[in-house]
């Protein structure tokens, strides 16, 4: 895709956003479960799932931080054109998107306050692949335990220690998405 051509994210925003949100709602309600999130022409290097997450949740009220390789002119133009979300640094963002190494360190994002823990950032973490292998997770939304290929077990444990403050994560790989809210415990 060229840097100048703007692609339309949703051709029928109300219905496409509703369907995409249902996937995200299920993903956040059932951490570790893999869901399919497809149906848009994502600007490289964004995955389809990450692009749909941004289209569904972002607007002029949500500053977005494009981390590392996600910060390209094509992505900037696409995001601004489709959502109107202002671009910002990690300190003031509502959403951040990028690969794990580019998103680090995690302590620079808004973590919420004790009285308003919801005022924390949501990280959209781009992965090469997602699978139900690796780290064993438990917590609200998980029936017993679930295994997930998380990027960094130690960071999750540290994030859980902040509860009810903390970061929520949406892991994306291609057209696959998994929720990783702050309530998740690493076993």
């Amino acid at each position, binding site marked *: 895709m060229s840097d100048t051509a703007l692609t339309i994210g949703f051709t029928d925003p109300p219905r496409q956003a509703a369907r995409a949100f249902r996937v995200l709602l299920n993903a956040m309600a059932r951490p570790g479960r893999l869901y399919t999130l497809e149906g848009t022409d994502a600007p490289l290097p964004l995955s389809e799932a990450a692009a749909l997450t941004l289209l569904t949740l972002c607007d002029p009220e949500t500053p977005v931080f494009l981390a590392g390789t996600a910060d390209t002119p094509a992505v900037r133009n696409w995001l601004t054109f489709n959502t109107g979300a202002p671009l910002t640094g990690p300190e003031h963002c509502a959403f951040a998107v990028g690969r794990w190494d580019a998103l680090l360190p995690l302590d620079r994002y808004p973590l919420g306050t004790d*009285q308003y823990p*919801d005022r924390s950032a949501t990280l959209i973490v781009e992965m090469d692949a997602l699978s139900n292998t690796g780290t064993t997770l438990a917590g609200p939304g998980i029936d017993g335990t679930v295994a997930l290929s998380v990027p960094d077990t130690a960071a999750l444990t540290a994030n859980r220690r902040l509860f009810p403050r903390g970061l929520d994560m949406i892991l994306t790989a291609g057209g696959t998405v998994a929720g990783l809210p*702050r*309530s998740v415990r690493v076993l």
Partner: protein
Amino acid sequence: MTETAYNFAYLDEQTKRMIRRALLKGLAIPGYQVPFASREMPMPYGWGTGGVQVTAACLTPEDRLKVIDQGADDTTNAVSIRSFFQRTAEVETTEATADATVIQTRHRIPEHPLTEDQILVYQVPIPEPLRFLEPSEVETRKMHALEDYGLMHVKLYEDIARHGTIATSYAYPVKVEDRYVMDPSPIPKFDNPKLSDSPAIQLFGAGREQRIYAIPPYTQVVSLDFEDHPFDPSKADHPCALCGATTSYLDEVIVDDEGGRMFVCSDTDFCATRRGEAA
């Protein structure tokens, strides 16, 4: 019947995004009340404006919606909300709990067990369980932040001291995942055990009070009690006069001027299904 002049599910997209973000934060912090910019809806506060906004933000065109008011599908509130979404979202509706994908409820949890494919949306009048003990939002915010719930136990203890039992019979406070004390909306305490470890997603919307909160599936929800006064999900000690069910929550109905009364299932779909099967 379709009102094409309205956006899908009535609300504009930016409002839905704002509600959707609040819902995701609510699920990430089970039992915590997320503030949201509640809109005026074409119905008065107290008629489920919070629940309607949550439902509007969640509905997809493929959903089958059920709406109940105190367990009944055929009361004014349920009928009008159902027809509201028929007109503005063109979704299918149903009265059968098992067939529904989204269920908006006023003050009951259906008797039929919920599944992983269902979302239960509660209409909430007063989301703050500590509100009648502490009128200041500034103070109750602090109490939640500090996990300072002693006052709630004092209230339940005073019930025992005065009445011999915990007299709270609806909106019975619960603790979610051993962290937040939460108002389950004015469901009878009979329904409280169904809040815990449910396969369905449970979402709560309070329109006038501008709060959204959530219980993810498979989440531990415990009704507050004392070791020597354990929680008792009591119900009327009768079978249903229509279907004979002994396990369902019952409404007491006055049937004449001589004080005659009968007890019938509050869940109309549950009762009708049982009678259909029995016939």
